[in-house]
Structures are given as C-alpha cells and as structure tokens.
C-alpha cells in the first residue's frame, strides 16, 4: 500500500486482466505492491505461490509476460519494468489461474521430485525420454511463452568509444563520473535503472548535508551538463571482453507504450579504462518455508518504502544477521508502518528505536497460503508466533563481482564482510569501487569512487581532483548465518526451486565440487543466474562437505549479466539484413523478364528466362541451351571476380600464384590459369588476360573472388614482398557479358564500332573495342564450347548493353540464357566449377597435372608432388553418361562396381555435377572415379542413398560434346 502520497502522474495498467492504478516512476513491482498484489507467479518446478522478492534486476520470482501478439515478451522481471499507461502484464506458469494452479500438485509430489530426479527416473527406456517424459516435463516446468508470431519490434545495435566507462551510478559511480568528468575525460556512465542514484534512491542517508536522492539528482544534472560525459540510463553492462570492450543492453523504448524507436539497443562499448561500481546484492537466509509471498529482501522493503512510498505490508517483521535489520525498522517506523518484530541472529545487539527486538533469534517457520500470515521464531527468550504480512530478510550483502570474472578472474573470500570481493587486475584497465569492492558505507563508496577516477584519469594524462562530500560511515557489522534448522524446505534458489536438502543430497551423492553441485541441483541456472542465491548455496555446500567457503569456491560467472534477447544481439541481421545483396547491372532487366533469381554467394543471378507456354524450368533451359548451340546466347558474367594486376613484376607474380606460366603469355592474349593452395589442392581457376607488358586482368570464379583477393594480398605481402606489383578488385567496375554461339561474331559486329574478324581475333585473344563510342574490352573465350566472346564495359553502361545484346540476339534467333543453361553447356564440355574443385581435389585429380609447371616455384608446387596426391587410385575426373539416356543421374550419388554392395568400403567415387543434355539427348554428368582415365567405357552404378536413386552409367571422357573443340575455334 502507498504510505507516502505520490507526486507522479497517475497511470493505469492491468495484471492478469484486472485494472490497477500506479504513478509515473513506478516499476510494475512497486505498482503491484502499492495495490496490495502479493502473489505474482508460480515457481518453476513445484508451482509454489511466489511474490516479489527484490527491487532490482536480480529478481528471481516476479517474472511476468508483457504485451500481446507479436510483441509479447515473456519472462520479464516486474522489478525492472517501467510502468506506462495501458501496460498489460500477465502471470506465467499457472493454469487455469494464478490462485488455482493445477500443477501445484507438483508440490505435493515434492518428495519424489528431489534434485537429480529427472536424471535418475527418466533414464530408461531411452525412447521414452523424447516421446513421453520430456514433453510432460516441459509442459509442467515452463516459464512464459512466446506468441509464435514473427517479432514485429525493431532492435538496434551500436558502437561507442570513451576514455572511462563507469558501470553503475550509485554513490561510487556518480562520484567516479563526477571526478573523471570534471578532469576532462570522455566518460560514459551506464546504469541499469531508469533513474541514476543506486541505493541513494532507496535509503534515507544524507550526502553533503542533503538527502542522498537529492545529491544524486544534482550530480546527474551536473554530469548531464558536461559535454564530455554521456549518461546511459536503462543500460545494463552485460559483459566484459578483451581489450576494454564491453557489451551493454539499452532499453530504448520498452518503457513507453508505443514508439517507432527500437525496443532495445545492444551496445559494444570500447573504453580505455573502466570503473566498476555495480554495488552489491542482498542475499536471503535459508529458513523453513522462506518463499511465501510477502517474504522479501530487507533492502527491497526499504527501496519500495523510500523510493516509491510503498509499504509492502501492514505489520512488518525483519530477520537479519546484520545492521540492515534495524535500519529497515527505523525507516518503516518513520513512515508510520508497524514493525511487528526484529529478529536478529546476533546475541549482542541493541534496538535503534521502539520496536520489539528478538536477539539470538531465528525464523523457524512461516504460514499463509497465497501470502504470509504469520511466522514462528525462536530467540533468547523462547519460541513464539508473530502475526505479520511482510517479512524482510537480510543475510548480508554480496558485492556484484560478476563483470570482474568474465575474463577468468576468481573472486576472493573476505571474512570481514562474509562474502567474495574481486581480485585486483581481473579485467585489464578496470578499477572496482564502492560496494562492488566491499566498501559498505556511503562515505566509503564516495571515497573509493573518487579514488578510482583519480587513478584512471591520472593514467590517461589528466589532472583529477578528488572532492568527496561527507556521508554516513557506519561500520558494516555482520555475523555469518546461512541456514536455519526446522521443519519444511529452506529455499535458496527461488527461481529454480533449489533448497538446502537438494544441496546436501548433492554432497551426499558425491557431487561435492561446486560446479558439480550446480549441475546436479540446477542451482543458479535459471534466468537470474543465482544472483542473490549462489553464495548461500555454496555456504550450505561448504557446510555439508565440511570444507570452508573459500575452499569451496564459486562457480564461473559468465556473460551476460542479465538476459539479453537474441533479437537485440542479432539486431540488423534479420531477414535481408542477414546478408547484403549484390545485384548485377542486368538485374532489373532479368527480373522484368520473369527470371527467378538465385543466390550465388551474395550475388543474385537469373536461373532461366521463362517464355509463355513453358511449363517447367527444364523447357526454358533446353531452349536457352539451343540458343547457344544453334544461334547465339547472351549471359551476364559480371559476378566473376575481376582483379586488375599491374607492375613490372606482374608476370612474375602470376607465375607464382598460378601453377602454370603467365610470363610467356603474349600481350592481347588470354590463358586459362589454375591456382593451388599451398597444400597442393586446387583453390580456384579462371582466365587471365594480358592487356599490356605490365598489365593483366585476372578472373576468378564468382564463389572464390573474395578468397582469391585475400590470397593475393597474402602472397604479395608475406611470401613475395620482393615483387613490384599492385592489384585491385575491379569486379564491380566492369559489366561483362558472354556472347556465345555460332552467330556470336555476327551479333558482336552489329554492336561494335569496328567489326572483328577471325584472323585478328583468334580464340584466346583479347583487346580494346568500342561500342557506341564507349571503350570496352573484348575477350575471345568460351565456357560453352562454342565460338564465344566476353564483352566488358564500365558498369554504368551494363544495363543498356545487356538490352542491346539481348535484342540483337533475339533478332538472330537466340536470346538471353541463365544459370541453368550455363551449367548444362559447361557440363557437356567438361568444364569444371566449384562443384568439382571443392577443396579436396588436386590438379592431378582433374587431369591437369601437367599444367603444374616444374620449371618454377609456385604456391602449392612442392606439396602437389607428394606421393599420396599422385596415385592412380585417387578418384579422378570423368564424364558420366546414363546407359539408358532417360535415366536420371543425381549429384552426390556414389559410384560402385556393378554387383558390389553399395557400402562405403566399396566406394569407387562420386557424382559432382549432373544435367539433362538436350544436345546429346541424355542425362549426363561429371564425377570422380578411382583410376578414372583408365576406365573409359566401363559401366558403373551411381547409388544415391539419400534420394533412393540408382542409375547405371558409362564412364566417359569429361568432354562429351565436340571433343576436338572445333566449334570453339571456328
């Protein structure tokens, strides 16, 4: 209930369909508590009623679903949701309703559902796991659900750089930011809360003679006015990575009803130095039935009271092992809330006010079905029951060391505060200050924040001044108390329903290492990652195994510190954002002709150009093959990589990267080149033209263009820095079209300013040409086996040249052809692509061994001569032809001797490329067969176990059409 009149704008929201009122500045949690809503969810495993436990991102219980439809977001912590008008929230993991949850029978079955239960019970029979047990368990032990619709929200990612990243904006963080900012450092302050100030907003301490919250507001205002300081509220730093890189999640528009802004932004922040001021998290005490709604952390009770004016109960009791107990009591009484009793586990303590104090006390039981009614306590004077609807507990504070452990740092046990503190230097460039470093008073936090900032600013060459305001400096007095004996389960991990007995069982069954205990019990493995419970769990494990806590150690802290949606991390990479699109200059013309576009790396290329009346792609493909074989076809080949290579040593450079020789190539001539990897296998192939004495242009396959460029960089910089050569990718600068077919020259001469003839332009010649006054390049090369050319013009003329060429081709009885026809044409001629040179084949395997010149060194030369790579038994390139021409061959099929069992021991090779050849009237293919060149004419069986296809094929020469190459030269 609200005990201090709010000043914020009134808002309405719904929870489970019921409308409530809140005020601006509320979180969903504070608004629910203000409305007396205590039961907010059911626990994960036993479906026990649960309420709000904390006031921050460590919340284990109060997980709700926000919104509806595609933007529905499950498993949101009510403690971190900023309230807005019209917010719709629903409880989770309960059916048919939160109050009458059918699965609560799990709690009655609890004796059978102990830790390790799933492992032990559902081991056998194996098939039952997938079909029966897992679906049932998943349904019973669920969290919130997604809508199942595509997410309609947008997300963003961004990068930021700074001198000093201050993580957390409590007293230490604000003081650090002020000190660094005043010294002139470029500062980013990131804080998970919507309002900066940390515990200063939740406590009643004064700073510099004014209320802590007011001092914080003034500090934020001063920082906001500094041009060298960037404030990032609602931004949680989620991970610390190498070289001063941090991940951070910003809630950009999650806290407003409707917005065009992205919902969240995932930041990568690079900082020269960082100051971790992440504060500390209060931990629970494991006493019997400590999970009823109404039992919460003492720090949360003070936060709801002091920051939001909400008392979580009418008669509050407090159970603690440290002075927090009394601080909480005083704050409540000051606000007029009844304190029904303070149970302090310590013997020698005095009350700070007029409230019942029970020393040497402990809570040994609690009652209340959907909310707390009463507790049973023992104390120095005996046992008694207290009526209470809210129990505030504090087992002490754990410094938030998480980020310091992300690079393998292990925190150290500190007896004085009964918790772990970071070790110095765990993250290079990071200094830890304030409660995160074990400084528990406000004065110590302010002091250490200023000190940390002075240290890093000085390292950065600045002259910082520490100007630290005065504040309370009470000592932190604590006596260890982890668990209380008594009847009933003593919960530790509220989110995963792990209790003291589970951990004892783990130790008893010899899962004694903290990492084993974690996996055995699932302690700390829920979405809250055991933020408040892990230290309690390992204290209980230490007790159960008879070891000390330092010896027991902690589990590994891994990023992210809070859950990060995949949508935020993958922002910009959904749909078409996943990969950029590269479009050729003929793209729009191809699309206009109805060509289905297929991906070739990042490029899009036309598959075929359908004509009216054609029912299948094959009909179109056959027609286009006919263009090239009988008339003339035009195909955009601009996607092939083009690398311009120049310099006095260009020829020597090519001799080194290609296995064959290019220094002997005459000017205005083209040569096919084969490129090897250093291990002797084929990397890529293509034609390279010599445009001048010191000037070549290399083509690569579409697929390997990037890889070849990287390789040339490597060879030039690392292996042959002695060669004077420069090169640049010009793939996108030139639009290039294949013009192929018996009428190719006729077509060309209809568009070129100066006609070409066979004498001046023999096969494998090249040179400059002019098309309508535009300077282009002509290469007489063929990937179809026909009389063919490739014509290149600067890209800006590509679209118009494609229109011109296709129009002229159509006038000659031909037309445009796509990838399908291109593939048929090259298989008929035995030309290889990356289907054949797939990374595991050598020059020997494809019958090009003699191309590997032994007169010079080249990349891959030495390794290609290794004995194992030159043996006849290796599968080698052959042509394949269906014995019955109508029998389909499938790519990927393996080859077996007729009659042999088609198992891998009998494998003779495989099929790499297949097509229907309209030219030969048969299904044909290319493949690799052991000792292939010596098996011409042999019948062999292609078996495709995946598709269930079996074809009798004849092994033949890879060049199945026009083996003499007369058409190419004609």
């Amino acid at each position, binding site marked *: 209930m609200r005990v201090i009149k709010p000043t914020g704008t009134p808002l309405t929201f719904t929870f489970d369909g019921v409308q409530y009122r809140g005020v601006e500045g509320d979180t969903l949690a504070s608004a629910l508590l203000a409305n007396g809503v205590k039961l907010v969810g059911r626990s994960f495993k036993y479906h026990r009623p649960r309420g709000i436990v904390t006031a921050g991102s460590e919340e284990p219980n109060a997980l709700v679903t926000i919104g509806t439809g595609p933007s529905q977001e499950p498993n949101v912590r009510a403690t971190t949701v900023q309230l807005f008008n019209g917010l719709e929230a629903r409880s989770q993991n309960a059916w048919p309703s939160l109050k009458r949850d059918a699965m609560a029978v799990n709690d009655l079955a609890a004796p059978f559902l102990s830790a390790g239960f799933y492992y032990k019970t559902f081991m056998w029979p194996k098939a039952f796991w997938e079909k029966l047990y897992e679906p049932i368990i998943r349904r019973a032990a669920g969290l919130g659900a997604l809508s199942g619709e595509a997410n309609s929200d947008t997300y963003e990612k961004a*990068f930021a750089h700074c001198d000093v990243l201050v993580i957390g904006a409590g007293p230490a963080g604000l003081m650090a930011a002020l000190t660094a900012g005043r010294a002139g450092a470029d500062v980013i302050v990131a804080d998970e809360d919507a309002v900066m100030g940390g515990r200063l907003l939740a406590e009643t301490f004064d700073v510099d003679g004014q209320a802590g919250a007011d001092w914080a507001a003034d500090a934020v205002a001063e920082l906001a006015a500094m041009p060298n300081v960037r404030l990032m509220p609602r931004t949680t730093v989620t991970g610390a990575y*190498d070289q001063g890189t941090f991940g951070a999640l910003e809630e950009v528009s999650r806290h407003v009803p409707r917005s065009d802004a992205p919902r969240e932004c995932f930041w990568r922040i690079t900082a020269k130095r960082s100051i971790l001021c992440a504060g500390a998290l209060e931990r629970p005490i494991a006493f019997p039935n400590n999970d009823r709604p109404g039992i919460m952390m003492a720090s949360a009770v003070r936060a709801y009271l002091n920051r939001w004016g909400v008392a979580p109960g009418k008669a509050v009791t407090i159970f603690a092992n440290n002075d927090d107990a009394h601080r909480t009591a005083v704050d409540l009484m000051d606000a007029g809330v009844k304190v029904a009793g303070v149970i302090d586990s310590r013997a020698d303590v005095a009350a700070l006010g007029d409230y019942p104090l029970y020393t040497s006390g402990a809570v040994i039981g609690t009652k209340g079905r959907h909310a707390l009614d009463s507790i049973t306590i023992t104390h120095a004077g005996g046992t008694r029951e207290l009526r209470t609807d809210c129990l505030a507990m504090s087992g002490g504070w754990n410094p938030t060391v998480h980020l310091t452990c992300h*690079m393998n740092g292990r925190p150290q046990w500190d007896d004085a505060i009964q918790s772990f503190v970071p070790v110095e230097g765990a993250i290079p460039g990071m200094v830890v200050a304030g409660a995160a470093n074990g400084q528990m008073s406000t004065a110590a936090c302010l002091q250490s924040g200023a000190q940390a900032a002075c240290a890093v600013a000085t390292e950065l060459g600045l002259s910082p001044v520490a100007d630290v305001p005065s504040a309370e400096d009470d000592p932190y007095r604590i006596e260890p108390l982890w668990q209380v004996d008594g009847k009933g389960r003593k919960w530790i991990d509220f989110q995963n329903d792990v209790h003291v007995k589970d951990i004892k069982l783990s130790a008893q069954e010899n899962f004694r290492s903290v990492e084993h205990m974690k996996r055995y019990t699932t302690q700390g493995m829920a979405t809250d990652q055991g933020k408040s419970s892990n230290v309690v769990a390992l204290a209980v494990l230490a007790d159960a195994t008879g070891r000390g806590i330092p010896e027991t150690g902690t589990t590994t802290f891994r990023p992210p510190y809070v859950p990060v949606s995949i949508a935020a991390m993958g922002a910009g990479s959904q749909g078409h954002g996943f990969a950029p699109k590269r479009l050729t200059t003929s793209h729009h013309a191809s699309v206009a002709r109805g060509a289905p576009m297929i991906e070739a790396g990042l490029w899009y290329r036309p598959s075929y150009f359908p004509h009216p009346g054609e029912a299948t792609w094959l009909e179109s493909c056959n027609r286009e093959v006919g263009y090239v074989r009988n008339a003339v076809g035009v195909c955009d080949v601009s996607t092939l990589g083009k690398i311009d290579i120049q310099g006095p040593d260009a020829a020597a450079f090519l001799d080194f990267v290609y296995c064959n020789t290019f220094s002997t190539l005459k000017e205005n001539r083209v040569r096919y080149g084969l490129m090897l990897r250093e291990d002797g296998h084929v990397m890529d192939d293509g034609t390279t033209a010599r445009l001048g004495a010191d000037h070549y242009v290399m083509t690569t396959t579409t697929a390997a263009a990037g890889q070849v460029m*990287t390789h040339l960089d*490597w060879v030039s910089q*690392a292996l042959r820095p002695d060669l004077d050569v420069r090169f640049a990718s010009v793939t996108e600068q030139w639009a290039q079209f294949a013009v192929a077919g018996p009428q190719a020259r006729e077509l060309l001469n209809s568009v070129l300013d100066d006609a070409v003839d066979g004498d001046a332009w023999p096969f494998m010649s090249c040179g400059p040409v002019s098309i309508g006054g535009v300077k282009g390049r002509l290469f007489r090369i063929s990937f179809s086996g026909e009389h063919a050319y490739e014509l290149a013009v600067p890209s800006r003329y590509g679209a118009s040249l494609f229109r011109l060429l296709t129009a002229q081709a159509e006038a000659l009885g031909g037309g445009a052809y796509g990838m399908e026809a291109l593939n048929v044409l090259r298989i008929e001629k035995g030309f290889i692509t990356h289907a054949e040179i797939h990374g595991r084949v050598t020059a020997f395997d494809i019958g090009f061994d003699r191309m590997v010149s032994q007169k010079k060194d080249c990349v891959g030369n030495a390794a290609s001569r290794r004995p194992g790579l030159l043996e006849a038994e290796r599968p080698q390139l052959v042509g394949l032809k269906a014995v019955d021409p109508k029998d389909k061959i499938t790519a990927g099929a393996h080859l077996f001797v007729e009659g042999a069992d088609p198992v891998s021991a009998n494998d003779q090779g495989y099929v790499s490329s297949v097509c229907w050849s309209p030219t030969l009237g048969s299904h044909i293919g290319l493949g690799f067969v052991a000792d292939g060149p010596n098996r011409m004419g042999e019948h062999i069986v292609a078996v495709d176990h995946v598709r269930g296809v079996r074809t009798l094929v004849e092994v033949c020469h890879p060049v199945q059409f026009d083996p003499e190459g007369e058409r190419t030269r004609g």
Partner: protein
Amino acid sequence: MRLPCPICGERDRREFYYQGDAVALDRPARDAGGAAWDDYLHNRDNPAGETRDLWHHAAGCGAWIVVTRDTVTHAVSGAKLVGAKR
C-alpha cells in the same frame, strides 16, 4: 577484442580475418623436402602463453599483420606488417 593494425590503428576484431600461426611466413624452399613441407603445412604448437598469429585487415586496409598475443590472458602485446623485418 581489439587489434592494433600498424596502418589503421586499433580496430575491432570483426574487421579482421584470422589465418593462424605466423609460422606460415617461414615458407620452405621448393626442394626443402617432404618433412620440412609437412611441418610447414600441418604442424602447429598450441602454446599456453605467447603466440604470433596472422590476421588480415579485410574490412580495413587489406594488410596482413602478425599479432603477438597471450593465449592465457588474451593480452595483445603488439602487431606488425608481415613484410616488416622479423
């Protein structure tokens, strides 16, 4: 992770392509023999400590660089161009 490109300065590792151990720079002569080539192509140490790795500044200047890095602490102690005197 950030790498110091000698040409461009310190950059995010996403700009770089990783290639492996810098022993790839010590290319044997063509006739060095099978053992030398086998060693060059296939054998790599797996040090817990300092390592010299090749990175290509693919989304930057195109330089191949040798980065000296500690595999235990991830600290990067330097980088130079592959062509620089070793």
